[in-house]
């Protein structure tokens, strides 16, 4: 963690991208949200907002168009004494506020190129006349798993540059988090990576617990681990299924994996009340104890159903020649480069580095379980697929152990309160989320709302490696390279 004190008027910092190219997107984001300029950054642009957005929203003096109060709970949502829409107070046409010298009519996007341009100097052999073509993949393209855009410059079918464009799903989760009280923020973390809400809950709760200095009771720890690992199974199964979708195996493999995920979602629903946006963990415990019969059902799923399903999936996909032909050797990036681009999670483990936060810095009670960290060193899409397969098996193994060991007892430390007292200070907690290292950084000043709240989102940071992984491959390969990064736009755009 790097800290710097800057003047509020003209904040400027030297960029760290020459040392860590993986800081590129984060610096873009800091410029966009906090208004800090980076000297020496290769391509500083507003990455989540557009250029016509006035101000830098994470600054404390910035107020949104529908601003009500500095922090929740609001004294009254409807001070007029009757129901009123926020939109009526600030009508739609009145809430747009352009920065000075900005004209939407003449504005040009920072990431646009001439659609077709003559290749300078021909294509190398000097005889054929070639042109470069810019292809806009997305934001509405089924391969991008959401509203994400890749602007690729092609020569023939080969990618020579590719820029990710995002922010279509941006809602400024961090600003909302600073307005919320600590406990209100738990359901919002569900909406980051909405495929693995239990992991997000866990990361956030761990960060706040670090500040509060409390620990959940044994049973709650076990429940948390079971939930987090089941989430990993869900998320990886989804990712594998949709990688196959991207390859063109339209929906048959995806539905086979989703079918197993469905059973896990049923378990989540029985325990927490919701399938995807679980909102299950609390500071110092979990919401409610597991319902009767839950453990038996979970036993059937984990000991019987999932191992069989994974074997079947492996039989179905792993040696398939079409998958081998499409995935082997595609999206190669060496381990050193992946580290330079700040990549974490399954992608890193597919390059021979056995880096797993559950092993290197065990949180919760992960040090009690026996599991292996995969070691594949193909650095390509195929090995990323195999790492996920392997991790699903290991996650099932962890849940099996946890189900055998889970003790009876309390599920909450202290009394559950709707207003928690969080002492002043700062804390950073990181967990091995299914997509990579998920970190929550919280600064508290002792008030009911956090002073600063920041999410290290793996889906966002892993995208640093997208361009270097795509260059030199065919345009059709960029789809599966992105599929193997496994982004969720809720987390990328926050």
């Amino acid at each position, binding site marked *: 963690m790097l800290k710097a004190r800057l003047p509020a008027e003209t904040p400027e910092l030297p960029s760290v991208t020459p040392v860590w190219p993986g800081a590129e997107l984060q610096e873009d984001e800091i410029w966009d949200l906090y208004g800090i300029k980076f000297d020496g950054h290769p391509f500083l642009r507003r990455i989540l907002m557009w250029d016509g957005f006035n101000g830098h929203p994470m600054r404390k003096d910035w107020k949104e168009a529908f601003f009500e109060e500095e922090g929740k709970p609001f004294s009254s949502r409807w001070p007029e004494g009757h129901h009123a829409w926020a939109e009526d107070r600030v009508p739609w046409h009145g809430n747009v506020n352009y920065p000075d010298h900005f004209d939407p009519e003449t504005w040009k996007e920072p990431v646009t190129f001439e659609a077709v341009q003559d290749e300078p100097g021909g294509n190398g052999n000097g005889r054929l006349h070639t042109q470069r073509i810019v292809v806009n993949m997305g934001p509405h393209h089924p391969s991008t798993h959401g509203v994400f855009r890749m602007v690729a410059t092609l020569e023939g079918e080969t990618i020579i540059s590719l820029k990710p464009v995002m922010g279509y799903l941006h809602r400024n989760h961090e600003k909302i988090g600073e307005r919320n009280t600590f406990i209100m923020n738990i359901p919002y973390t569900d909406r980051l990576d909405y495929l693995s809400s239990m992991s997000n809950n866990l990361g956030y709760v761990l960060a706040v617990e670090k500040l509060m200095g409390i620990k959940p009771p044994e049973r709650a720890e076990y429940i948390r681990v079971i939930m987090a690992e089941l989430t990993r199974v869900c998320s990886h199964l989804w990712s594998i299924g949709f990688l196959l979708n991207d390859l063109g195996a339209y929906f048959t493999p995806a539905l086979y994996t989703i079918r197993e995920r469905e059973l896990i979602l049923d378990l989540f629903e029985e325990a927490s*009340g919701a399938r995807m946006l679980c909102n299950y963990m609390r500071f110092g415990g979990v919401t409610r104890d597991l319902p009767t019969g839950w453990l038996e059902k979970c036993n059937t799923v984990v000991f019987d159903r999932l191992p069989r399903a994974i074997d079947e999936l492996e039989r179905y996909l792993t040696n398939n020649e079409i998958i081998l032909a499409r995935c082997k050797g595609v999206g190669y990036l060496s381990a050193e480069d992946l580290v330079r681009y700040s990549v974490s999670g399954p992608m890193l483990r597919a390059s021979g580095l056995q880096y797993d936060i559950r092993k290197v810095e065990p949180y919760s009670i992960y040090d009690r379980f026996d599991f292996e960290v995969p070691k594949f060193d193909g650095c390509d899409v195929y090995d990323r697929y195999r790492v996920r397969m392997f991790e699903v098996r290991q996650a099932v193994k962890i849940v099996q152990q946890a189900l055998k060991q889970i003790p009876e007892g309390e599920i909450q430390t202290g009394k559950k309160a709707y207003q928690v007292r969080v002492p002043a200070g700062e804390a950073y907690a990181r967990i091995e989320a299914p997509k990579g290292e998920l970190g929550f950084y919280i600064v508290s000043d002792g008030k009911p709302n956090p002073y600063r709240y920041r999410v290290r989102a793996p889906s966002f940071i892993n995208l640093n490696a997208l361009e270097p992984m795509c260059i030199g491959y065919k345009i059709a390969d960029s789809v599966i390279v992105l599929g193997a990064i496994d982004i969720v736009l809720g987390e990328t755009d926050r």
Partner: protein
Amino acid sequence: MFGLGVVKGFGVTLKRFADTYIDDVKKIPSRYAGQRGVIDQGPEDTGIFTIQYPEEKRTLPERFRYIPMLLRDDETGEDRCTACGICAKVCPPQCIWIVRDKDENGRPITRPTEFYIDASICMSCGLCAEFCPFDAIKMNHEYELAAFDRYPKLVYDKEELTVLVSYYAKLYPTQYTEEEKARADKAEKKSK
């Protein structure tokens, strides 16, 4: 042999294809004749997992949460809500709005005159039900709430939100029994 992986893979597809028919023959009434309205799929089930909503529906688990409801006693007809406002304070999107009742002298009393929930803002997190000290607000299972207008259809007032305790007891049998037991224990302690 080249191509063996693909052939083996198709074996899996073929098995799944057969499974759907076996499942339908085994289970009575048949799904394809549209005779099963409620589908309950467990970890032992094979066959098709997709549900043809709205002809078919899933059974909902007890803890399923959607939009809050207010409880009213069956016999006395009194609301359990005391207008303490904890639900409004803990609500993350701040969609609850309560107006406290006053007595003849203008002093506030523990009863709401108005209670609004803006269902178009509500995020179904269930924090209000979790932290209500009087078990007055619970999460309803009714999820078919689509309406053509946001206002006034999706802003629920007190009458629209209120349900009888017996309705709640039917939706949440285990939780209701637990709460009633805790309530009885508390009353017993008090009387001693």
